Every structure is written in structure tokens, then in C-alpha cells.
């Protein structure tokens, strides 16, 4: 509330027609942890069919932004709409791939069990998982190259394989807007390829992906839009417009050496 009162200019992003229908439209989002603001006055409109990389230094509020956008943590202020409606009314359209480290992998479940969780919404309250659901879940494991590991307890999988299980679980529901929290962290080359393939397919199907990404080197290759964040939004837009050395410098400050920056820019084709 206070953030809203203090805001000098009224934000107009949600009043436009385009923003009303956008996969994700955020207006003036502020979030704090223990009396410390971690996301400050963030407005952002995600494009249709966009692969958006959310980049920024450690502690920039990237994961917090995603969790707040999903309504998982309370926000101080701000409005969030998904395809023009409040996020709580659009749950069926939203897929989520959390950070791999956020769960206990010693849980008594197989890879197939975890992917089946993606179908629970479809199955509904109190109804049992049927054979058809299991077969459906297996087909999604196949899509990420994990069908052979369906019956393995999830703790017996490598980090990359665990990530692919999470990805398959998100695919198992037919969402239109996907949130992914650092899916590329600590994965092997095969998993990286699998994730990139999935991203491409999602884009071809007209879906939108908002993905927290830690690696500046690969961001321009994998994504076509960027949201650069350091507590406050630094820049957002199509990759070639937003992902500039100036903006990165503003977000990362001294944490990015000049040589790193110029290296990145040559990669981005600038």
C-alpha cells in the first residue's frame, strides 16, 4: 500500500488493451522479506509466444518475482493478471517448474509419480490416479527423454534428470504460461538440450515462458525476451533491445567485469 501511495507516476501498463490480454501483466509489484524490500515497483508485460529470460545478480529478487507472480508469497502492493484475469482464476493456464533444491528428493515417489502430480488438477479432489493417467504421465517423461527412468525413485536420479522430471510434470498439464526457476542450474548437456527443445516447442505452440536464468552467456541464445532485474526493474523487452551492455552494467554494477561484458555483447551480436 505504501509503495502505491509513494509512487509518483501512475502506471498505465494495465490500461492498454494489449496488456489486458497479455499472458502476464504486472503493475507496480513490490515484495519484502522480513522488512527488506526485495522486489520494488516492478511493472512488466510478458509478450505472447515469448521466451523471457529473467536475469539479474544474486539477491536481485528473481525467484521472489516468480513466486509473487504465482501468488505463492504475499506482496506489499501491485496487481497481477494472467490473460486479463487475476492469477487465482487462471491456475489451469499456469505451469510451474520450481527450483530443484526446493524439495526433498528422498521422498518415497518414482519419477512417474512426480509427473503424475501434474495431472492431479485434472483428476480432481479425492479421486484416485488411474492407469490412463499413468500412461499419460509416461508420455510426458518420454518427451524429456526420461521414459527409461519412470520407475526409479527420484533420489536415485542425477540432478539433470530430476530437473527433467520437474519439466515433464509442468508439461503434463496443458498450460499456456510457464514459470521456470533456474532450470539450467547444475544440469548436464543432455538435460540442457532437452530443456531447450521443450522451450522451442512451447514457443511454437504459442505459449509463453518466464524463466529465471543465471547464465548471461547463454541467455541471448535460448530466449528472445529479457527482463533485467535488480530489486527494481532495469530493463525489459525484446532481447536485442533490453540485453545491452549499458543495462547489464546498471543491473550488475561492479559485479560484472568490463571484459565479461564485452564478451557477452559480442555473443549477443552487438
Amino acid at each position: 500500500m505504501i509503495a502505491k501511495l509513494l509512487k509518483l507516476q501512475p502506471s498505465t501498463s494495465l490500461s492498454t488493451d494489449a496488456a489486458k490480454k497479455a499472458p502476464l501483466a504486472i503493475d507496480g509489484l513490490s515484495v519484502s522479506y522480513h522488512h527488506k524490500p526485495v522486489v520494488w515497483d516492478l511493472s512488466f508485460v510478458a509478450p505472447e509466444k515469448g521466451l523471457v529470460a529473467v536475469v539479474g545478480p544474486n539477491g536481485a529478487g528473481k525467484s521472489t518475482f516468480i513466486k509473487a507472480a504465482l501468488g505463492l508469497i504475499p506482496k506489499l502492493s501491485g496487481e497481477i493478471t494472467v490473460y486479463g484475469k487475476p492469477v487465482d482464476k487462471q491456475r489451469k493456464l499456469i505451469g510451474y517448474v520450481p527450483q530443484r533444491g526446493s524439495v526433498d528428493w528422498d521422498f518415497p515417489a518414482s519419477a512417474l509419480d512426480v509427473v503424475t502430480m501434474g495431472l492431479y488438477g485434472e483428476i480432481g479432489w479425492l479421486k484416485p490416479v488411474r492407469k490412463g493417467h499413468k500412461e499419460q504421465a509416461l508420455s510426458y517423461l518420454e518427451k524429456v527423454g526420461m521414459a527409461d527412468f519412470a520407475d526409479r525413485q527420484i533420489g536415485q536420479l542425477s540432478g539433470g534428470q530430476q530437473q527433467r522430471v520437474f519439466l515433464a510434470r509442468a508439461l503434463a498439464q496443458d498450460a499456456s504460461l510457464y514459470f521456470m526457476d533456474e532450470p539450467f542450474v547444475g544440469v548436464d548437456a543432455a538435460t540442457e538440450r532437452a530443456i531447450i527443445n521443450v522451450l522451442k516447442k512451447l514457443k511454437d505452440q504459442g505459449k509463453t515462458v518466464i524463466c529465471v536464468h543465471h547464465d548471461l552467456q547463454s541467455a541471448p541464445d535460448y530466449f528472445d525476451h529479457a527482463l533485467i532485474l535488480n530489486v527494481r526493474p532495469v530493463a525489459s523487452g525484446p532481447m536485442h533491445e533490453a540485453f545491452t551492455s549499458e543495462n547489464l552494467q546498471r543491473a550488475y554494477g561492479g559485479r560484472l567485469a568490463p571484459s565479461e561484458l564485452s564478451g557477452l555483447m559480442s555473443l549477443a551480436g552487438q
Partner: protein
Amino acid sequence: MLQELFDILTFQSGYNTNVVLLGAGLLGTAGGVVGVFSLLRKRALISDAISHATLPGITLGFLVALALTGTGKSLPFLMVGSTLSGILGVLLVQWIKDNTRLPEDSAIGTVLSSFFGLGVVLMSYIQTLKSGSQAGLESYLLGSTASMLQSEAEMIAISALAITMLAVLFMKEFGLVCFDPDYAASRGWAVSKIDLLMMALLLAVVVIGLKTVGLILIIALVIIPPVAARFWTDRLGVMVAISAFTGGMSCYLGAALSALTPDLPSGATIVLTATALFTLSLLFAPKRGVIATALRQFSFRLKITRRRALLSLNKGQPTLSFLASFLLKREGVLNSDHTLTEKGQKTVATMSRDQALWNQYLSDYPEEAFAQNRWSLAMITDILPRDLINELEMSIDSPKKEIG
């Protein structure tokens, strides 16, 4: 004595004992089922806070019943009192966690000892009352099936059955929230309501179990069976079933033992029975048990020692450990003077080819090789399909030119 135990166990000791045993068995089943979810939700210790927090409620319930009805030993009053103070305890733990920097275990410790202290003071006060001597409240501390009324046992049996059925009905939702609450919330599941139901079932098990197991030991009822069950399986549904069985057997056998020796508090005999079942699981469970793990470790060492020894023989100048030369001599690979037998030369050649293939697999398919948990532990021909091995053989014999 044995005959008597047999009679009790086979429900031949009168209706009252039968109902008590049945109630205890169903109580244990409910504890086992509900316990799985509090264990997986990492809330096992909260049940200790709940159980200790019930004591002031039991004593206050007794005093209120005494004032209103003239006798304190009124089950409804005691149950309502213990439920209310149990809820208060949970809320306090939650409040301390949310509003201070104390971690959950400190909050639990503080709440359970404070409530327990208050309860003991109130109990001592009741002892000084004239009607206090026959109160029998101390049976709520360590459990006593001997003094249990038939109506109480019936109430326990019915409630336990209802708790078990509810928990099984909600197994899918409970499992989802235990594994990944954030994901569940992102999908629109009412995580806080599901959590509340799990907590309510836990509270219900504690309250109906007070008389049988006692508030000091009741935590065992929701912790030991699921922990024992985890040794046997990697599947949630199977874990719930085994935990239910373990809990049910512990309470049934423990209550029977207690019926045989009425001086022993039933809580103690039940917990010791559960401990025995836990120990069996810990030792003998086929995959995760201690003995199976040790055996696997030993066979792994033997395989690795043998393989390393054969590979070092292939390179000439081997330095063989005592274990290695013992193994190879027994196998007929080595002569007593440490030279290779005819069979040995073959074995060494086969093994070195096998290792070369495994190494090639690791460099050609690093991800798959890493995921293959028998890499270099078995012969590659037993593990990988023929066409893949052909490919690996070709890639050994004509290494690919590196690009650039």
C-alpha cells in the same frame, strides 16, 4: 503365561479385553497412516508439542467436570479439554515461529515443556482434592488399558477407523502437499486447508490415544511406524500400508502384553513393541536395511577389487592386495606363484576389453553412463544392448577426429 497371551491375542478373554485390543489396534493403524504424512511434511516433532500441551486441558477438563457434575472422570470433558489445549499448543508454536526468530524446534521445546509444567502443577492440585485420589489421571501420562471402560474403547475404535479412512481418502492430496507445497499452491490446491486437515488428524490421533499410550509416549505412535516403513519401500502407498500395519501390530501386541501384566503401563509395552518392529526393519529391510546395505557394500568391494586386480595384471607389474590374490587364486586365475593360468590370461583380456568399452561409453555418452549405476561393476555385454556395444567397439578402434 503363554497360553494366557495366546487367549488374549485371539480374542478369547472376554468382550471388554477384545474391544480394548481392537481399539488399540485401530488406534495404532490410524497413528501409522497419519504419521507418514507428518513425517514427510517434516512435522513429526509437532506431535510431541500437541501431546504435552494436552495435559493442562485434561486437568482443567477434570476440574470443570468435577464442579459441574460432581465427578471429574467424565470422558467428554477430558477430551474437549485436551483437544482445546492441544490446539492452543499448536497455535502457540506457529505464532512463535512466525513472529520471532526462533526456529521451530525451539518453539516446540518451549511450548511442550511449559504446558507440561502447568499440567503437572494442576495435577498435583487435583491430588490434594478429596475426590482426587480416585481420579486416575496419571493413566493419561503413560497409558493404561487396564482401567479402560468398554465405552472408551469403543469410542477409540470408531474414531481411529474414521481417521484412517479420511487420511487414506486424502492420500493423493496429502502426498502432493508433503512433497512440493509450492507447486501444489501454484496449481491452485488449497495447501493451507490440506495442511490444516493433516494437523487435525494428527491432533485427533493424539487425543484418542492419550488413554491407551499416554501423552509422554504417544509421539512414538506417529513416528516409529512410518520410519520403520520407510526402510521397506520407495512408494508412498506401500509406505502408508506398511506403516499402518506396523502401528496396528505394535498397539495390538503391546496392549495384549499389558493386559497380561496390568502393572506395566500400556504405553510402555506398546512403544517397546513398536521399537522391536523398527529394529527388525532397520536390520533386515531388503534395500535400505543396515544388513542389506553392508552386504551390498561388501559385494561392491569384492567386485571392484577383482576388477582392479585383473586390470593391473593386464598392465603387468601388479601389486595385489591379500584379498585380491586370494580371490583370484580361488577363481583359478592365478597360480600359487602369482603367475597367470591359461584361464587367467583369457579373463584378464576379457576384463580389459570390458573396461575399455565402459570407458568409451563414459566419454561418448557421459550422461547415460553417469545414470547407469552399474557402470564398471558388471560386464558391459550384460548391461547394454548389442548394437550400442558394436558402436562403442567401432569408436574405440577408429577414434573420431576432433573437429577444429
